């Protein structure tokens, strides 16, 4: 577990360094893309963000349901 945590931290740190470097280089193309065609891609990105957060919440809910299912199965097996 500790090993995993270390790996995860390294990954996050590397990612953030990479992102920070990319930000300077790629800031202009990134913005140009979203400003093109009358800024329609801003709308696309916002619909994507909306459904991404909703899906993340649904995954969280599903994990809770899985947990309850496992507990109930465990209970019925032992009794």
């Amino acid at each position, binding site marked *: 577990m500790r090993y995993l945590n270390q790996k995860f931290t390294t990954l996050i740190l590397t990612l953030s360094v990479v992102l920070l470097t990319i930000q300077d280089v790629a800031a202009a193309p990134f*913005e140009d893309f*979203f*400003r093109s*065609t*009358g*800024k*329609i891609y*801003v*709308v696309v*990105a*916002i*619909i994507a*963000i*909306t459904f991404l*957060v*909703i899906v993340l*919440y*649904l995954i969280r*809910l599903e994990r*809770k*349901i899985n947990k*309850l299912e496992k*507990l*109930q199965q465990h*209970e019925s097996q032992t009794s």
Partner: protein
Amino acid sequence: MIRQSWWKYLGALLIIYVIIVGLLTPMKPGVYEFTPINTKAGKSFTADIITYNTHYKDSSQLRAWLKIDTSYALLSSTIEIQEVNKLKVTFDIPNYNPSTSDVVIADLVIDEKDEHFMVLPQALYITQDSSQVDEGALAWSLSNIENLSENTDFTFPFRWITEESMRNLFFHVSIWFAMFILLIIGIIYAIKYLLSKDLKWDIYSSSLTHVAIVFGIIGMLTGSFWAKFAWGQFWINDPKLNMSAVALLIYLAYWVLRVSITDQDVRARVSAAYSLFAFAALIPLVFVLPRMMDSMHPGNGGNPAFGKDDLDNTMRMVFYPAIIGFTLLGLWISSLYIRFQLLWESYMIKRSN
């Protein structure tokens, strides 16, 4: 009601309708770029104009005006069509402005016979060294803006800077509206709990509030992304933004509060009372304070709220279904959470017996 499915299908259908109609409806033509933005009175002035959604050809019948207030207008002297969306327009600016001030700000109006007319507010700053109001007023009243062509097709209005991202209204704004409706229903159940002390209503109230917080987070993320391309930065020092961040933090504390109290009855009572106070704090934070300060949001700091130009009838036909659709989606998600929590509670009770 919670187990019936017609309203869930209705919500899904409304959101599909909003995505399709909200994205496919074309925009009215508009002015995209106007350069240069200042000139002197008494000079011949040529502007390069880039338009959006126009289809000019050599035979297009174009007219252009500069407009000061509602009473003064100046017709262009020549219009050269360069491309389908590019114009070179020359105005002979009169020697004097129809005003005593050094600078007047003129709006631009362009009309094409087959397309909807377009307006660029505050397009040009005209400076003058000395003033002759009577002469200026006379020179500026020679032409009238009349016979503007209107396109009655189903189209959304074009706004400068916002452009196509105007369509975010159907997602960003309706998510906030849905959040408020979910919170209000949550408050009703919180009061119901406080009156009856039935833990079932606590589960209803807390689930609705949880989903409302998720919608608040979506509203904040989408708003931040939109701000980057409408206002230039992901986060600007705008009272509406800061106050809604404060309100969201108050609600995140609600989340923490519920996790940290283990006794069921205490948790239910404290969180019901807390949610009442949180909602009472939310209303002035989001609806009252930003209106008293300068804010970039429509309806705040003197900006008109949903003016005729920002939200016309075509946008209403998508905006109101969007609010209902996202509210129903939120209710659907919270109904799943409610059912899960009810099962969890009954399982816990069974196990403790």
